[in-house]
């Protein structure tokens, strides 16, 4: 039987070279979706194969890798991907945003500001921001080529006419470098401003759809809006119950079946770092609270 033997970071060097070429092209044309010959990976499509291929192609032995899903290092898929690279590349892993050189993410951008030299790798399910307005790839590629984004503005306008607001709360479309409209992946729109002029390199990998795109460091990223309906961030208006942060995106935790809820940071590293520094929230280190609920 052909016993499998795998290369550093799983992918063979030929494949890595092909992916690196696509990444370089993507960096050269910010926001443009570069087709690449995505491979079958040992995890399912839709579970981060695009991000995994990008990470595999850029990872070096000296890198320190962090993987998050929903902002957290502890979600099962994040653990699974982190273990995959720990096993196939033997690189150091971390949960600290500041210490990581490569951060692979699904659905969030870390709260702690990224710095120059870091790479943020996004897992992307549907790279085409126009896909739900026009299902055909041949059409959407033409629309991008001509910069024909009227359809998107009409969609946003119709939202306002119908709901009074732009009713897109995640995967909120942005314009990159004043040229291409881009899907930021399904991050909550709270995270959109973090992409703008970010000192870190941002790479986006869509495995099933076979596309890679990029935002080079210090590139303008503008969320689409209208003068009289400017882009706004959404965040549940409460401090984190564990660390008291008033500026982080919050997960809603349902604590019983009587409607009780609490709100805690979705970014676990941010929350834990703050707690270590002595920041407290209403529910942290307060065992007597149980009596109140009891």
């Amino acid at each position, binding site marked *: *039987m*052909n016993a*499998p033997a795998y*290369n550093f970071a*799983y*992918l*063979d060097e*030929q*494949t890595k070279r092909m992916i690196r070429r696509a990444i370089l092209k993507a960096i050269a044309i910010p926001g443009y979706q570069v*087709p*690449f*010959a995505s491979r*079958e*990976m*040992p995890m*399912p*499509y*839709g579970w981060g194969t695009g991000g995994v291929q990008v990470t595999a192609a850029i990872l070096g032995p000296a890198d320190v890798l962090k993987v998050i*899903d929903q*902002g957290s290092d*502890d*979600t*099962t*898929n994040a*653990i699974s991907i982190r*273990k995959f690279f720990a096993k196939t590349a033997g690189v150091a892993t971390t949960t600290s945003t500041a210490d990581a050189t490569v951060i692979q993410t*699904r*659905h*969030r951008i870390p709260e702690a500001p990224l710095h120059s030299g870091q790479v943020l790798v996004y897992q992307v*399910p549907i790279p085409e921001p126009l896909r739900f307005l026009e299902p*055909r*790839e041949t059409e959407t590629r033409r629309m991008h080529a001509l910069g024909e984004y009227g359809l998107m503005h009409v969609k946003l306008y119709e939202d306002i006419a119908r709901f*009074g*607001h732009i*009713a897109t*709360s*995640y*995967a909120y479309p942005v314009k990159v470098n004043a040229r291409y409209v881009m899907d930021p992946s*399904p991050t*909550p729109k*709270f995270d959109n401003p973090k992409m703008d002029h970010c000192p870190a390199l941002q790479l986006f990998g869509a495995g*099933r759809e*076979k596309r890679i795109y990029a935002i080079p460091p210090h590139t303008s990223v503008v969320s689409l809006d209208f003068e009289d309906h400017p882009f706004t961030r*959404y*965040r*549940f208006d409460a401090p984190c119950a*564990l660390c008291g942060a008033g500026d982080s*995106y*919050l*997960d*809603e*935790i349902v604590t019983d079946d009587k409607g009780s809820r*609490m709100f*805690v940071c*979705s970014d676990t590293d941010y*929350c834990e770092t703050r707690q270590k520094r002595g920041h407290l929230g209403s*529910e*942290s280190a*307060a065992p007597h*609270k149980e009596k109140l609920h009891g």
Partner: protein
Amino acid sequence: MYVAVKGGERAIENAHRLLAHERRGDREVPEVSLDQISGQLGLAVDRVMTEGSLYDRELAALAIKQARGDMIEAIFLLRAFRATLPRFGTTEPVDTGRMQVRRRISSTFKDIPGGQILGPTFDYTHRLLDPQLAEASIPEMPATGEVSPAAMPRVTDILGRDGLIEPSPHGDANTPVGDLTREPLGFPAGRDLRLQNLARADEGFLLALGYSSQRGYGRNHPFAGEIRLGEVEVEFLAEDVGFAVPLGSITLTECQMVNQFKGSATEAPCFTRGYGLAFGQSERKAMSMALVDRTLRARELGEEVLAPAQDEEFVMSHSDNVQATGFVEHLKLPHYVDFQSELGLLRKLRKEFAEDDALPDMQAAAE
């Protein structure tokens, strides 16, 4: 005190351990061997090799065992392994005309040179559960006969000699065939890439599409010109020695559909072709593929594209079951942050709705 959910790592390890336990089933019952799967569940192995795009019975059997009989999971395992293999080159085109035929039927002619050969088929069996198979049973040895020296020309070649069917396009030896596993797919796609996509496509998806075209969605009037099953030689042109070296033989099922004729002011009418090819004995797959190959030629043959089966972007983008299952099943992954974002928006809209609703009432009360 609330502690954020932890312990995912241990949960994964335990889940995998439990999976291995479930896979083994009752430990008192002998474990199924790869030889048993390959020999006795041979059609499952054929399907996994076909849609997994890798001709290796042993690995396909291993994949089926590892996947607990889940075919798409097994196909996925084989594909993921295939993706890591080095590529040495492409073989010479196989010549199915020189196939060592085990089964060969045509629905277009009662008799054909070389004859109709039923071979191992479910066709004409009565689908009655056989209680004898529930116990160990030894079937009769198969009947044997003399090997016929007669050549077995393909039925489409017979039609082609009289110009009744469009000629099969000749491949240009200097133009490499496309490979959608190595180059990203673009549209419109050439027939080489379409056929590759269909060969890897989910059998059920192609079956439904082929069926839909028979029922009038992209009408297509096909005859099964010929279906043949057997072994063909695979040869590889070794640059060093300068000639084609045989690598071995593989089992293939080929289906050539003969379809409605077309003609124009400048061309005499003739039948058109639809082509299907699959590893092993995969007749349903090869037939469905041939139907869909033909419907996807709509653009090339100047037909109006109206039905899903004729729409290459629709068909090719959704035919791959490994892609499809991944994306459908990814809905199991957490979506907390997006859902939270949607909750926020929905609550805001509902609050505004309630306020708007309350307003006229208040006005009415004031009046």
